[in-house]
């Protein structure tokens, strides 16, 4: 069968440039589009909140960025986005905070002016108090979603001795106690030019982009760059059982130590995870989901800076839960013992390559990919290069990766639902 074809009009037009103050610019030109997607990517997130008093500050700050700058109040910010017809938002994760806009290309100068202005928020004390209520509501909302709760508790247990383990939203207490001064200090430290990336994909002229960003951001000072990312992985089996009698479904999440974003075996680990549990056709799909035992049985890779996790996710009934956990463990053990088969690897590669090509149609997806790849590897990569890297993975690579990170060793098991620990054969 023919390899997936990349559209010829997507010939690689990649650009990078670093301003004197350390701000990194990344671009992929897609001249046949009318839109352009751009973002500021701050290399900071929950992981960089080592002080428990700062738990949730990255995410809270992400909200405050929309609340006003020296030149604009909050109404003016949203109005200016609105006048461009922009799609815009932001998100905070454990390792990054991203502010983005998607616009028609003629608005590019206005969008650069607005987004860059927002990176220097006024952080007003009254706005801070009002927004605190919204954050507390966001925490309350998250508590009503069992899958999100279970994932956060898994991270907490797996990364118990690392700042990676605490919730991105913070706790109700940390948010109630936090002061605007603490946030200002965090912003000054983590939003220096040298810890930010400006990424853009779509319809633009690069010289114009560089000039606009230089003009808007050239005067920014620098701050702390990157982080002290210690490698971390549990060195023994752990479990955490949260009993929620009012729930009908039993959730079980299994975390196994795996590759980091920087690891040379990242793609081998990714492909092995896909064979194990990426939707239709995977081991978990055939042997658990397709048998009607679980509403969801899947596996995915969560690679972070210097550490990573293979996550197995199960949603089943309390009656089936002990058997489903046993079956999933048998699959993890089987993967470890037998590795993956030639035809399985071929299929996983095709799936990943197709996904890469399909996502390549979207400027927004390319913009994100530029930033993620740069952070992980300090480079930009075309879809063709990405395809080649996937193709290169061999059965031996997968075997080596499994030997380095056994899927069935030092697991953290998180159970969230009606069952007690004993019912699942887990320590109380």
């Amino acid at each position, binding site marked *: *069968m023919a390899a*997936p*074809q990349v559209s010829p009009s997507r010939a690689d037009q990649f650009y990078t440039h670093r301003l004197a103050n350390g701000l990194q610019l990344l671009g992929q030109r897609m001249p046949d589009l009318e839109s352009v997607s751009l973002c500021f990517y701050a290399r900071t997130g929950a992981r960089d909140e080592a002080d428990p008093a700062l738990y949730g500050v990255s995410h809270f700050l992400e909200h405050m960025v929309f609340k006003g700058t020296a030149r604009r109040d909050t109404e003016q910010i949203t109005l200016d986005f609105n006048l461009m017809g922009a799609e815009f938002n932001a998100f905070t994760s454990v390792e990054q905070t991203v502010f983005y806009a998607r616009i028609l290309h003629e608005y590019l100068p206005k969008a650069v002016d607005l987004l860059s202005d927002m990176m220097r928020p006024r952080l007003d004390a009254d706005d801070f108090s009002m927004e605190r209520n919204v954050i507390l509501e966001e925490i309350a909302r998250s508590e*009503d979603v069992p899958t999100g709760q279970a994932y956060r508790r898994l991270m907490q247990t797996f990364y118990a001795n690392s700042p990676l383990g605490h919730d991105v939203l913070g706790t109700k207490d940390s948010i109630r106690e936090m002061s605007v001064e603490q946030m200002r200090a965090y912003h000054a430290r983590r939003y220096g030019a040298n810890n930010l990336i400006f990424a853009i994909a779509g319809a633009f002229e690069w010289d114009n982009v560089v000039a606009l960003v230089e003009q808007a951001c050239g005067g920014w000072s620098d701050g702390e760059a990157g982080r002290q990312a210690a490698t971390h992985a549990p060195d023994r089996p752990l479990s955490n059982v949260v009993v929620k009698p009012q729930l009908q479904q039993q959730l079980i999440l299994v975390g196994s130590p795996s590759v980091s974003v920087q690891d040379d075996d990242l793609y081998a680990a990714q492909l092995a995870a896909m064979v194990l549990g990426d939707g239709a056709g995977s081991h978990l799909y055939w042997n658990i989901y397709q048998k009607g035992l679980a509403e969801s049985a899947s596996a995915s890779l969560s690679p972070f800076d210097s550490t990573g996790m293979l996550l197995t996710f199960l949603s*089943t009934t309390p009656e089936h839960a002990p058997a489903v956990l046993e079956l999933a463990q048998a699959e993890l053990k089987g993967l470890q013992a037998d590795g993956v088969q030639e035809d399985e690897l071929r299929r996983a590669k095709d799936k990943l390559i197709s996904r890469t090509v399909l996502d390549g149609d979207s400027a927004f997806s390319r913009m994100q990919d530029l930033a993620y790849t740069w952070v992980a590897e300090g480079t930009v990569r075309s879809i063709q290069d990405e395809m080649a890297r996937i193709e290169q993975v061999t059965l031996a690579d997968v075997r080596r990766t499994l030997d380095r990170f056994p899927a069935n060793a030092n697991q953290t098991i998180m159970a969230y639902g009606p069952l007690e620990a004993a019912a699942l054969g887990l320590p109380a």
Partner: protein
Amino acid sequence: MSTPDANVNAANAAEAGASHPNGELAPNYFMHTFANGLRMVGQRMPSLASVTFGVQVPAGIREEPADRLGLTYLLSDMMFQGTEHRNVRQLTEEFEDIGARKGGENAMEYGRYTAQIVGNRFDRALDLFADVMLHPTIPDDEFNQMRSVQLQDIRRRDDEPMRRIFDLVRERFYAGTTLGRRSMGKRETVEQLTPDDLRTFYRARYKPQGTLISIAGAFEWDHAVERVGELFGAWIGEAPAAPAQRPQPQTGMNVEIIEGNQEHIGMAFPFPTYGDPDYYAASVALEIFGGGMTSRLFREVREKRGLVYSVAALFAPNGEFGAGYLYAGASPDKARETVQVMLDELKLLQEQGVSEDELQRAKTQIKSELVMRGESSAARMGALARSWWFERRLITIQELKAAIDGVTAEQILGLLRRFPPTTPLVIGAIGPRTEKELVGDALAKLG
């Protein structure tokens, strides 16, 4: 192989390069009717790598037998569980081999099966889809397994109040019709389902006359017409038309009391359908009211008062009976004020309409989003299918922009007189609070 429809010769229309509502199509837009009644519409997007297509059948949730609720949800899975030529493992692996993103969905007024693939695998995907659509076996073993999964889906949904708040609202809003049904059905009805129920439903409703194939992305139209003709040409029959239904929503409230961290509040009021002369005015009005961070609801409920994290309005036009939906999630002690502010804002909108400034901004926003979404093959496939399904024509992005531009503040006032959003108003709530605690006598005052 069917003969091309004499009225609409797609290739000629493309060359003509004109956009006209009643006749020729705009460049890169195509339409064709096969001899068996099967319709196909398409938009070619040559700069993309992907192609997305969907097969939409006149077999929605509203058509389920009353004692077999949840049938279409199960059927949308079972269609991929084996055919006369491929067992489930072969079928799944062949889809995996071409890296297809595929799936079935059951909507209120139709069922739809879609796939997104890289352009040079379109033929393979079409072959597989023809097998799936025309020769499904609905095997007994897989049936039992997928029914178990569905029963678990229902349980998980029950565990997440945010996901089912509109089940509560819609059941009351569409009371007395089949339009307020839950997508997954109910435990009692799903437990009753048999493979023969699905086969009977499939045989009665999956017919070429009334079915629509929509394609957008990197493909060649003439080739697609030829392939679809070869693959689907022998399919025959017509699905019975759905009887018209006239819901009569009455102001009132459905409350479910649970322990929870938030009160989840949903509201619904009658609003235009697709094709209604006020359809575009309604889109603009709801964008202004609750469409994003500049909307009235966001400003008043979240930004000024800090009552919620989520608050939004959503337009659900449908084909038969449209609705405007509102959602907010608030801590129990802020729930009453949240409801009150939402009601006050609805009243204000109803009495005063929108300002010229708001109107201009909303138009810019909607038009820009139209163009940006126009760059995705999946979004265009969906838009083409919608415009043909509900309005029996292909609406180009240019036409949409013009229609949005044509909306005036006066027209929105007229719309709000035709569909006053506070009467009738159906409210649903899931959380710790009672009806009295949430609204007091506010609903009685709405009349």
